């Protein structure tokens, strides 16, 4: 297994190189450059063309394409992720400020959706065809069809404006930095994100548990005289969880990228908001690094999924 993991990790290197290069090419195709955004439009008339040129030279925007890409890559390996073209703040600092917020939100949502979703899935599989099962199925259908931000807006309308239970957005009130003080800010976005992910988890765990309950080894377990809950939960659920783990594993990248929309709805100061802001202002180094990290997380989590699947299901062999 160690061998397998090492081989996969080595395989990532060419992949990440290709991806980083593609992204660099894409960014080069953008209209305008950093200098256009660095200087406010009203101040632009006071700056001469030579001064603009000098600025471009200083920012390294005039080097040949491959040199710029090479510089960027070398910096990256040295842990220098570049600077925000707009504010001059190192991208590293920007990420260090926003990643904890995003992790907090998405880990809460991931845990909530996995536990809640598979719990509902198991309930509805064990009581197949009951009213509860059908209600949950309908909720699941609506859950995958409703746009995430619309769901967020409805939650805000209900819990903030109608019931007045929770704050409308942001991560904390000024000064209240303790976790328990921030908790009421976290609940609404985390539950919204979690519920919208739970719909998928529920569908998966339901169908996969139903599937495994029809298998021969379940009959064997039952004929051994094991108690019903043992048969269902220990023997059935263990294998049935495999596709759920795969689903959750593929959701890991959401830890950074997937909460983009929810962060916007709730004004959560995380990576997603930073990403949207930098896309709008064409702040190349910032959104490049975010996307780059995201891809790496995606690739790593797909390896993780393979490994966990093999651990869970004894029939799976890693090759």
């Amino acid at each position, binding site marked *: 297994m160690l061998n397998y993991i090492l081989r996969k990790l080595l395989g990532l290197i060419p992949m990440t190189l290709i991806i980083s290069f*593609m992204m660099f090419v894409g960014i080069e195709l*953008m*209209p305008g450059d950093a200098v256009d955004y660095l200087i406010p439009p009203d101040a632009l008339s006071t700056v001469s063309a030579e001064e603009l040129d000098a600025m471009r030279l200083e920012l390294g925007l005039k080097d040949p394409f491959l040199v710029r890409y090479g510089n960027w890559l070398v910096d990256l390996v040295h842990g220098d992720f570049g600077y925000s073209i707009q504010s001059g703040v190192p991208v590293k600092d920007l990420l260090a400020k926003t990643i904890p917020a995003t992790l907090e939100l998405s880990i809460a949502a991931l845990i909530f959706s996995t536990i809640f979703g598979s719990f509902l899935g198991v309930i509805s599989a064990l009581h197949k065809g009951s009213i509860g099962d059908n209600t949950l199925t309908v909720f699941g259908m609506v859950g995958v*069809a*409703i*746009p995430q*931000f619309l769901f967020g*807006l409805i939650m805000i309308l209900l819990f903030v404006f109608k019931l007045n239970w929770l704050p409308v957005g942001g991560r904390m009130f000024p000064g209240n930095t303790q976790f328990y003080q921030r908790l009421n800010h976290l609940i609404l976005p985390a539950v919204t994100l979690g519920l919208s992910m739970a719909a998928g988890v529920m569908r998966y765990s339901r169908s996969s548990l139903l599937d495994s309950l029809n298998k021969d080894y379940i009959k064997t377990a039952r004929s051994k005289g094991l108690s019903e809950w043992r048969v269902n939960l220990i023997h059935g659920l263990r294998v049935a969880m495999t596709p759920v783990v795969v689903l959750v594993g593929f959701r890991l990248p959401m830890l950074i990228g997937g909460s*983009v929309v929810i962060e916007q709805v709730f004004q959560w100061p995380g990576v997603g908001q930073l990403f949207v802001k930098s896309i709008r202002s*064409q702040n190349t180094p910032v959104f490049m690094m975010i996307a780059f990290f995201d891809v790496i997380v995606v690739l790593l989590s797909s390896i993780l999924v393979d490994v966990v699947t093999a651990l869970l299901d004894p029939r799976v062999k890693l090759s």
Partner: protein
Amino acid sequence: MRKKSLSKKMDTLLYKENKGLLKSSNKSRVLRKILANKLAVVGAIIFILMVILCYGAPLFTDYSPTAIDLRNRLVPPNSTHILGTDKIGHDMWARILYGGRISIFIGFGSAVGAALIGVSLGTYAGYRGGMLDSVVMKFSEIMMSFPQIILVSIIVAITGQSLWNLIFIFILTGWPGMYRMARSQMLSIREEEYIQALQAFGIKKSIIAFKHMLPNAIGPIFVNITLSTAMFILQESSLSFLGLGVPMEVATWGNIINVAQDLTILREALWVWLPAGIVITVFVMAINFIGDGLRDAADPTQVG
């Protein structure tokens, strides 16, 4: 006695087969299976109804979606404006209908475009294998390692925001999925004996791939097109919400809901954004029902 009736049955079957009478029953079986699936029928009815409403919009509303009426701003639903008006007096009913034209067009157009590219490449490369296949496969792997919303936003930033750019982006990001699906279908069909027979006859590879193999993979392709349509409609609305979709002055379902970012509208003027939200959800659900129904119907292992 029993044997006799059985052989008689086989004789009629043989007779029918030879006369070419058996062909049509297969088609009606797919149709019958779809009709037996109540959800799929409901989905299809909703879908057709909404398409008629949107594309026949002038028949159902007298207002223009872009007419500004500053005397009637933020009017709640009443007899003249059945869904009320927004901040600058647009009639919401008209905006939902005309906006639906664009949202449906984006969703369906992108799905068909992605299918055309993905399926034709996948069919050919899946059958031929070789260089083309491995290059495209690698490319699709790269595309798929980006979270969709991140990839789409980056390309929006590069190309700029417009209706056609959005469709172009959806096709660009959507075809690798179609390619993989078509390719895997081809890989399994390739092993069938009738393909060997065709090869033995010396028939051109492209003819084998497109004329003899593709029709057998058409079921999953249609399922994929329907489900992608739903996905693209949802993505269009998310992008609009992030301010990266079709320019705001064009009415689309996503753009209509987008105004609810203004908290006063969100709280005080439900009629502006909620109907469009319900419409989008119901429409996507309808398409999903059709897709699921198609999948069951096209699956020959399920007897109906």
